[in-house]
């Protein structure tokens, strides 16, 4: 089934269940699905596991979701930033769990989920605290760590434009985690600046084909 083009953000985030794992795109504000996160706050789902590169900035977006106590666990590579005070406070009070994952492993674990890979041996983190307790194997003289996929119940992706089938294009470095997350979730929800008619996107430039996309909303 091709993507459903939603009229409102509320329609786009409808039905996200309590306890869901939510993949949230963006690197800094580039590619951050700000309106979808606001919609998720309105929608009210709680006890969430959020997978994103960062853990929120200032008082908006992911930080606002965290501040409302909706997030049980954060899986990310870089929570600590100059303005990550909401996460910092909750973490220090023991109110949110953190799984710290090297950025490349975060991307590859989601890629694996989307590509049907059961697990993979990766050289990143060998001999460091982030590989402690994980299975290792020596292959051709090099040590690798076994890493498992990260699957989402939902992905929230910020992109540039989509056609009415759900083919998606991105702009510049706002692409970042979007294309990988779109493949790795049971339901992928994309916010775009513009929805164009079918045929309105150059097929050579489509980055996320419609097969990965469930709902699209223009914001």
């Amino acid at each position, binding site marked *: 089934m091709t993507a459903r083009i939603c009229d409102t953000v509320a329609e786009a985030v409808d039905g996200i269940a309590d306890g869901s794992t939510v993949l949230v795109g963006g*690197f*800094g*504000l*580039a*590619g951050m699905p700000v309106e979808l996160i606001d919609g998720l706050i309105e929608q009210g789902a709680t006890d969430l596991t959020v997978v994103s*590169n960062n853990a929120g900035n200032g008082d908006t977006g992911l930080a606002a979701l965290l501040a409302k106590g909706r997030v049980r666990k954060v899986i990310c*590579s*870089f*929570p*600590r*930033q100059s303005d*990550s005070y909401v*996460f*910092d406070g909750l*973490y*220090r009070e023991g109110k949110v769990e*953190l799984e*710290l*994952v*090297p*950025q*490349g*492993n*975060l*991307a*590859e674990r*989601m*890629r694996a989920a989307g590509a049907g890979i059961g697990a993979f041996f*990766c*050289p*990143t*983190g*060998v*001999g*460091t*605290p*982030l590989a402690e307790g994980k299975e290792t194997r020596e292959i051709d003289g090099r040590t690798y760590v076994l890493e498992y996929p990260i699957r989402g119940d939902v992905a929230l992706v910020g992109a*540039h434009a989509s056609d009415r089938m759900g083919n998606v294009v*991105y*702009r*510049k*470095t*706002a*692409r*970042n*985690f*979007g*294309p*990988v997350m779109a493949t790795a979730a049971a339901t992928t929800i994309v916010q775009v600046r513009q929805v164009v008619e079918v045929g309105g996107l150059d097929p050579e430039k489509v*980055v996320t084909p419609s097969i990965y996309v469930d709902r699209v909303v223009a914001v």
Partner: protein
Amino acid sequence: MTISAGLSKDEMAARVAQDIPHGAYVNLGIGQPTLVADHLDAGSGVVLHTENGMLNMGRAAVGDEVDGDLLNAGKVPVVEPPGAAYFHSADSFAMMRGSHLDVCVLGAFQVSAGGDIANWHTGAPDAIPAVGGAMDLAIGAKQVFVMMTLFAKDGTPKLVPECTYPLTGVGCVSRVYTDVAVFEVGGPEVVVVETFGTSYDDLAARLDVPLRQG
């Protein structure tokens, strides 16, 4: 024994830039290593990689050039020179892990004589750890250069027999560029390649690693 002031941060960056081969694909870590870009001349042919998904990254954007969709790994707006290319995060890290990047330059808390690096976490109980792309870069690039002051503010050396901070990568650093000397690490002895405002004997007196004059 004192060691007189050596290179400034900019001079260190310029020294690192000298050793980056013509036409190399290079990732510059967040913080001080970013300064290296200012010392690569236009004819260097160096292509900068930023892990959030761009090759041939340009300089920092100013004024009307600022575009919220175009950031570097430090989340600073940059410009898009001709020859730039964009890709997603999994591809970006595949470039590192797959040994396609020639050089990365990282900052560090500590580097060991054997080439281990610690740069992501002090291990302090109240510290919130953040690793970003550091572990992927440390094991991925063909050559890992570290740029740091040789001594911490309390005077203790940051080039050590074994790192005491949590590791980022094992045996992956090849050269260490500091304010007072350039070192080659990873061999049986640490080789002092060059000194700035200090002598080999001064360094040997203050460092607890086996040294050899290069």
